[in-house]
């Protein structure tokens, strides 16, 4: 492992930028993400920063069960996020649609049909501590030695 890669690993571990996208949730999960910002849970002590700007995000938090407006917008937004990137879905809605997935529904779950999902936190809504641990768990696996994994992938495809 090069020095540069070690440096990148060390920096990325303490700098995870988060953007949350509400694709038709009831606000319940969104305010639990917001509660993570509060000094009681203090998401920033783990190096997670909520900026809500997809262009500088590493982790996208998706809440809600994909309303009609988001069907084309969410994959578009996902393309704009710079690599390395990951999606963590919060709540039951992105997994199954929760109580809204009934006859006469206007939502189209699951979110994994539209963009690749790394981790899912179930709950209606999940507690802030669960959200923090999910972001940290997903980020550890994804961003460590990211460049090495990418070259391995490319090398594999050339053979």
């Amino acid at each position: 492992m090069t020095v540069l890669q070690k440096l990148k690993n060390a920096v990325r571990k303490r700098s995870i930028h988060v953007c949350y996208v509400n694709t038709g949730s009831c606000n319940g999960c969104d305010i639990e993400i917001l509660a993570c910002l509060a000094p009681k849970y203090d998401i920033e002590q783990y190096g997670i920063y909520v900026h809500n700007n997809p262009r500088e995000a590493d982790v996208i938090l998706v809440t809600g069960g994909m309303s009609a407006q988001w069907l084309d917008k969410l994959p578009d937004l996902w393309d704009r996020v710079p690599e390395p990137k990951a999606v963590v879905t919060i709540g039951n809605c992105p997994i199954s649609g929760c109580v809204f997935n009934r006859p006469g529904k206007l939502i189209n779950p699951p979110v994994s049909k539209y963009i690749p999902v790394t981790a899912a936190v179930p709950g209606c809504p999940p507690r802030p501590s669960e959200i923090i641990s999910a972001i940290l768990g997903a980020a550890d696996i994804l961003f460590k030695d990211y460049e090495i994994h990418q070259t391995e992938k490319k090398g594999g495809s050339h053979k």
Partner: protein
Amino acid sequence: MKKVVDVSIPIGPIHPCFKEPCRIKCETSGERVLTTEVELGYVKKGIEKIMVGRPWQETIFLAERVCGICSVVHNTAIVEALEEISGITVPRRAQILRIILNELDRIQSHLLANYSYCYTIEHETLAMYLLNLRETSMDAIEMMTGTRIMTAYVVPGGVREDLSDKNAAGILEATYTLETELKRFVKMFETGPMIALRSKGIGVLSVEDALASGVVGPTARANGLPRDAREPDPLYHELGWHMILRTESDNFARIMLRFQELFQSINIIRNGLAALEPGKIRNGGTMKAGKVKHTVEAPRGALTYDIEIDSAGQVVSVSIQTPSIPNIEVASHAMMKNLASIADVTSTFISADPCIACAER
């Protein structure tokens, strides 16, 4: 001579200031905002459509998920509507417990609204203070109901579980923490010169516009309009409720009115805890067919459930009129009209406390 070109600036749907997706289109001339238009439809779930044809037991949980911020009041509204249809009475202890929970919910909602405003005007310190204080009220809600959000505490005929003496003492303690901390933060907000620059005289809603638009809740009361759905309730008067009004009708007035209502809510909770007498918490009854229109005061204003159920207990038709609908309209058409700066658009919009999930359902 060059002509000033009007630029249309879109804000959203993903924006650092917004908790929820919505899009504001601003027609500008230089820095001045001429007109704005709010574009909704990003979180439409069709809850009213799902409710039709379902048994009433299920609609209670669906109604709760109209809005996560004020889930308690949606729960209360639909349950009280169902009770009104069937003529079910509620024991006094359960009524007071409902009021205590609703006021705790109002505290956390108002704190969240004021947090959003302070965050939008970039006063992050005060915003974080308020968000941390909100956790005190969330803990009190958890102490009372067992969960933070989606409590399902109010059930037809009463409440789900009793409040123990230990938890009542815990809630009383929380009110003292809230009051002492709030006094400090209100003084910070009132006397901050930078906050005054960003808030006073900005986003003024004229009385004519307010009367024409049917604005409700704190946005109306900051305009001097006495609109509060708690007024006809005698129990609220008994617990020390009175109408709070302000007349400046700018961003500062709307935030200060919420701060003043927080102190009132704390007072109501204390009086409610003192008025609690041992007794039943739930009455029985039979569900009947009927149609009713019931209004309660949500943190954002008057919330109306227009519901009809048949003899089998299934919902025939339901219409949820949430307070955010008139408030978003008046924010886009009257408050954000002719603002001096683009930077004031988001702060004025947030000062009306819009809840997109409520408005679209």
